[in-house]
């Protein structure tokens, strides 16, 4: 390029590429492509729902609302009620959350506020690894380690100390029970709660913690009165994610819940969950009605998960609008 003496060298203008047609075309393709991917997901969800509804229509017509109020499950006699499975899914997930929430938040607090800097990364890595273990492996661990332990120690101990409550009465059936399933689920969902709570706790402004310390607060008071209130909406989001995982977990639960379609007041006795009955009985569904019933169980599981997610989101949204944090 001609360069007059004294005029500045304009490197950018000389070398920058002007917006060519090819670049603009790529932009268009990228935009349309991502939109297509997004729409495809929505379409899949709609198709899935539609198909499940279509397949379960015979069962819905046959049993009507009685399907949700009956606790009979007798495939030979063609009497089907989803209640024991609904109960098992909800109770095992609730047990899991009751155990996993304090453990998860405690671990996250330890990793963000208390642990020595060198330990934080290592422990966080191990906790993340928990989420990578296949659920059938958890199930095996449940069958061979946890269930015998429940049978020999935990169950008798709970019955001896808390047996006056209907919640903790025997007899035991080889350690498989609602509580065993809840415990396995708790271990499986803890990494989700830890991962999200950790991210949220890291966003608490240092300024706020400093203000608390400057007023003579201890570390515990600062965590309890400043850090946790600031993070509760975000941590709530993590709990919702964990709940979704617990509701749908199939393999590990099937292996330790006991697979008895009955509603027991005691969590030391076996139960059954919606996901577990699908896994166990799908191959045996001999009649058209039986198959249709199982699809309706699946649809119910889907709707329960969906409704709980919506409810939790509304709750979080209201918490956020009352107090921004």
């Amino acid at each position: 390029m001609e360069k007059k003496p004294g005029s500045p060298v304009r490197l950018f203008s000389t070398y920058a590429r002007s917006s060519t047609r090819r670049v603009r075309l790529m932009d268009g393709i990228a935009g349309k492509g991502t939109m297509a991917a997004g729409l495809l997901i929505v379409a899949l969800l709609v198709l899935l729902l539609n198909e499940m509804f279509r397949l379960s229509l015979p069962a819905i017509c046959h049993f009507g609302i009685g399907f949700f109020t009956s606790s009979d499950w007798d495939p030979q006699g063609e009497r089907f009620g989803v209640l024991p499975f609904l109960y098992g899914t909800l109770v095992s997930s609730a047990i899991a959350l009751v155990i996993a929430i304090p453990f998860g938040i405690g671990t996250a607090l330890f990793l963000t506020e208390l642990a020595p800097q060198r330990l934080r990364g290592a422990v966080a890595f191990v906790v993340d690894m928990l989420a990578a273990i296949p659920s059938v492996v958890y199930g095996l661990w449940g069958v061979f380690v946890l269930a015998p332990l429940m049978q020999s120690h935990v169950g008798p101990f709970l019955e001896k100390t808390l047996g006056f409550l209907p919640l903790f009465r025997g007899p035991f059936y080889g350690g498989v029970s609602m509580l065993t399933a809840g415990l396995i689920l708790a271990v499986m969902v803890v990494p989700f709660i830890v991962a999200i709570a950790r991210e949220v706790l890291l966003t608490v402004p240092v300024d706020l913690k400093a203000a608390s310390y400057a007023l003579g607060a201890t570390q515990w008071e600062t965590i309890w009165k400043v850090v946790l209130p600031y993070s509760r909406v975000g941590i709530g989001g993590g709990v919702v994610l964990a709940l979704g995982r617990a509701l749908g977990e199939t393999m590990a639960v099937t292996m330790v819940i006991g697979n008895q379609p009955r509603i027991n007041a005691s969590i030391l006795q076996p139960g059954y969950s919606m996901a577990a009955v699908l896994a166990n009985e799908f191959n045996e569904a001999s009649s058209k009605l039986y198959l249709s019933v199982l699809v309706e169980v699946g649809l119910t599981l889907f709707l329960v998960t969906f409704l709980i997610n919506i409810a939790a989101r509304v709750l979080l949204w209201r918490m956020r609008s009352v107090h921004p944090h």
Partner: protein
Amino acid sequence: MTDQSKISAQDLSIFYGANRAVKNVSMEIRENRVTALIGPSGCGKSTFLRALNRMNDIIPSVRAEGRVFLDGQDIYAPRVDVIDVRRRVGMVFQKSNPFPKSIFENVAYGLRINGVRSRKVIEQQVEKSLRGAALWDEVKDRLQTSALAMSGGQQQRLCIARALAIEPEVLLMDEPASALDPIATQKIEELIHDLKRDYTIVIVTHNMQQAARVSDFTGFFLMGELIEVDETGTIFTKPTRKQTEDYITGRFG
């Protein structure tokens, strides 16, 4: 008026890891006086300020050497309760940092964590503190609304009220008006003037006019060292050291 020493720093050095941010500073802070700390950015004045109520302790890599006496007691001595030190030496930060709670709960926070349970006492003390921070008339009808809905200047005065609520003896202020407009700044400065009747105040500022307006004593920091400390009038009219003169006349910084 007695010009008694309230805080006495002796040979104080503060390290960030291996980097020494404050170098062998010895300084007297006089009771019921306003002491301003001035100097260019990164000169160690804020770090020195935070050493006076051991706020540097919450940063893991920071280490202090030397001694700081509060009423004759070394606050870095082994058996001293850091909670007690911070209750006696309150702090207001550069960026106003109210808790995401109501105005009332912000001021009540220090009372609650220090074990005050009586609702009546808390209410009285909240009112007294808000009056002390010249904020009561503006907020008395909306004590239950979020502190985050207040203007920047009001938030900073709320932070002052929050610090006053636990009746400290010393108030440390780290550039308390640097993020505020001139009107809000003026209010804070008037407040500092009123507060020195009851409190010993140490204020860090990069605004030399502010130091001249509000303080009785001024210390000039440069690269971690305390170059000179004297009555404010003396520092700004006839400083002893060449670096001080260069700084206050605007030759650098």
